[in-house]
């Protein structure tokens, strides 16, 4: 097997604020292979977006502090000088953002915005050539009448169409890695299905790696190959899609899976909500960050559990939980299928 496309190792990002140091990302490691979709899942404040932005060098600033490494194509994205990173941004790695309504500059025609990205990385292309390429890209992401629409302004497009434009723009320099940050969250379901289909086709044609940042486990189940679950700045569990959904090892993952409303489940039972709220990243709890909300916490949880493979048969299914594997399976079976029960109902 060849080297992975992207190798993130123990990434840490801290922001110095007036209230103290925010540990937005606190030990994240994962890899992305060519042609693979890796989903980073978590709720707001889990550090998933900061992780993605850091790979693009978009979190750099006087108040930010980085540790660890992220190797892409022989470059360490964490330590690379700004000039070198700029060559990669928008070319080797491209990004699609959450809100298509505000992510395009309102004062330029969309064609011009795509041409800008093509020409900033390749000065040899003439404006006319770049314009033709922009039309080609718009056609490829399913925008009807692309030759006309290339001269339209962003506000003349619907949200779904704008997200297609964002994808076309991201593809303009054939990136090896595409980072999509909640690409469908702002869209309607039928449009979401169209966009996800677009992403699926892309991966087939392009063979590029995709990082999908999302909070929506439905979207994850739909298109991801591997899943990284983040909680309060840390990776709590990672593995293949089926491992995460059918044999989750971390109580947070169980809770997350149990608390989603599902279109294929009736309302006969109450949802299994995780009690409490995620901790403040300014003063996270000692040890395991999920400890205060976890019904199974015990003394050892005040130490930070390492992210390692705990299952005997798979080397790539990693988690951060001190519970023994048989113990976890027992707890999970006694509780709901993939849900979290309170202390009283489970440990009795």
């Amino acid at each position, binding site marked *: 097997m060849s080297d992975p496309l992207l190798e993130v190792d123990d990434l840490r990002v801290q922001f110095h604020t007036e209230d103290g140091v925010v540990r937005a990302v606190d030990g994240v490691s994962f890899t992305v292979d060519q042609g693979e979709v890796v989903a980073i899942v978590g709720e707001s404040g889990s550090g998933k977006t900061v992780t993605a932005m850091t790979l693009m060098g978009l979190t750099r600033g006087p108040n930010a502090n980085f540790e660890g490494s992220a190797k892409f194509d022989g470059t360490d994205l964490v330590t690379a000088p700004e000039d070198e990173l700029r060559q990669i*941004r928008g070319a080797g790695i491209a990004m699609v*953002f959450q809100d298509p309504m*505000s992510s*395009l*500059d*309102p*004062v330029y025609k969309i064609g011009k915005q795509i041409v*800008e990205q093509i020409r*900033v990385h390749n000065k040899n292309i003439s404006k006319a050539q770049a314009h033709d390429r922009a039309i080609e890209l718009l056609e490829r992401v399913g925008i009807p009448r692309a030759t006309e629409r290339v001269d339209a302004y962003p*506000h003349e497009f619907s949200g779904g169409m704008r997200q297609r434009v964002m994808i076309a723009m991201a593809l303009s320099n054939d990136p090896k890695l595409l980072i999509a940050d909640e690409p469908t969250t702002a869209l309607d379901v039928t449009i979401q299905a169209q966009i996800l289909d677009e992403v699926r086709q892309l991966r087939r044609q392009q063979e590029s790696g995709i990082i999908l940042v999302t909070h929506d486990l439905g979207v994850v189940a739909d298109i991801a190959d591997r899943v990284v679950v983040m909680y309060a700045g840390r990776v709590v569990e990672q593995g293949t899609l089926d491992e995460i959904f059918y044999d989750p090892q971390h109580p947070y993952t169980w809770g997350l899976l149990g608390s989603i409303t599902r279109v294929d489940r009736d309302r006969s039972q109450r949802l299994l909500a995780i009690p409490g709220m995620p901790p403040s990243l300014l003063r996270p709890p000692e040890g395991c960050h999920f400890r205060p909300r976890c019904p199974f916490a015990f003394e050892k949880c005040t130490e930070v559990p390492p992210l390692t493979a705990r299952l005997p048969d798979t080397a790539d299914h990693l988690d951060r939980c001190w519970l023994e594997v048989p113990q976890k399976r027992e707890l999970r079976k006694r509780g709901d299928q993939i849900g979290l029960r309170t202390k009283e109902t489970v440990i009795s």
Partner: protein
Amino acid sequence: MTRFIVRRLIAMIGVMFVISLLTFLLFESIPNGDPARRLAGRLATANEIAFIRKEYGFDQPIYVQYARMMKNIFTGQVYSYYQGFNVVDEVKLGLPATLSLAIGAGIIWLFTSIVVGTLAAVKAGKNTDRLLTVLSMVGVSFPPFFLGAILIYYLGYKLNWFPLGGYVKLTSDPWQWFVHMVLPWFTLSVLFIGFYSRVLRSTILDTINEDYVRTARAKGLSENQTLRRHVLRNSLIPIITLFGLDFAQVIGGGAILTESIFNLHGIGQLAADAIGRLDITVILVVVLLTAFFVVALAAVVDILYAFLDPRIRIAV
């Protein structure tokens, strides 16, 4: 576009009517504002005053007086109650000086504040920003008459680099025109630069956090390219509005202090003199002129707006 122009014209007439009426009524009601007494002079007898009052129609109902005044203004037959000159002619005489001041200073203050504001925003929180903040504050808080006086004293009187005041026509001697305008331009600009650069700095800092600026960076644009193409273009939009209105003010005689201190004999100075003497005819004409320029330039700004921001369709 027709709809826009028609509506704007109606708005303009409305604004000018209301402003002229208010000004007129104000002068009717202030004590010592009785034009008959003023016209008659300090030593006039009660009989003389009564005669003048009848002669000029000041005894008639107020709406008749107003209507007659407006008719006079728009036929160009309006005369100062004190010095007897034709006000419209006087305004025409003052217009070149005021226009020279407004256009020159406008260019200087617009461009300087864009440079200063951008620099302050880019260096936000650093020493350059702090220095520029202090300078802007000084600029805003320096009254033009004081700054003007200092400049005239040091650069004009002491060093003799510039004339002490007055206006020379551009058509008669361009170089002298320029030399005479330098200090007024500077004095007037300082105030606006201070204010505009602050506004621009904060708009830029807001715009920098917009999603599309993040997109621009993610495309691989350099900081410079991002700033020029995406941040500045979007940040200038509010500045244009401010500029349109302030520029109209200055053309309409708003730079009273600057014009007076440099003795430019522009519309502002005309207004200043008239206010001192409570010369209602002159004041009314200048006020109407200002209102006209403000409404007209506001319309121009709206058209420019639609050009700068395609999301805005020209509306009223």
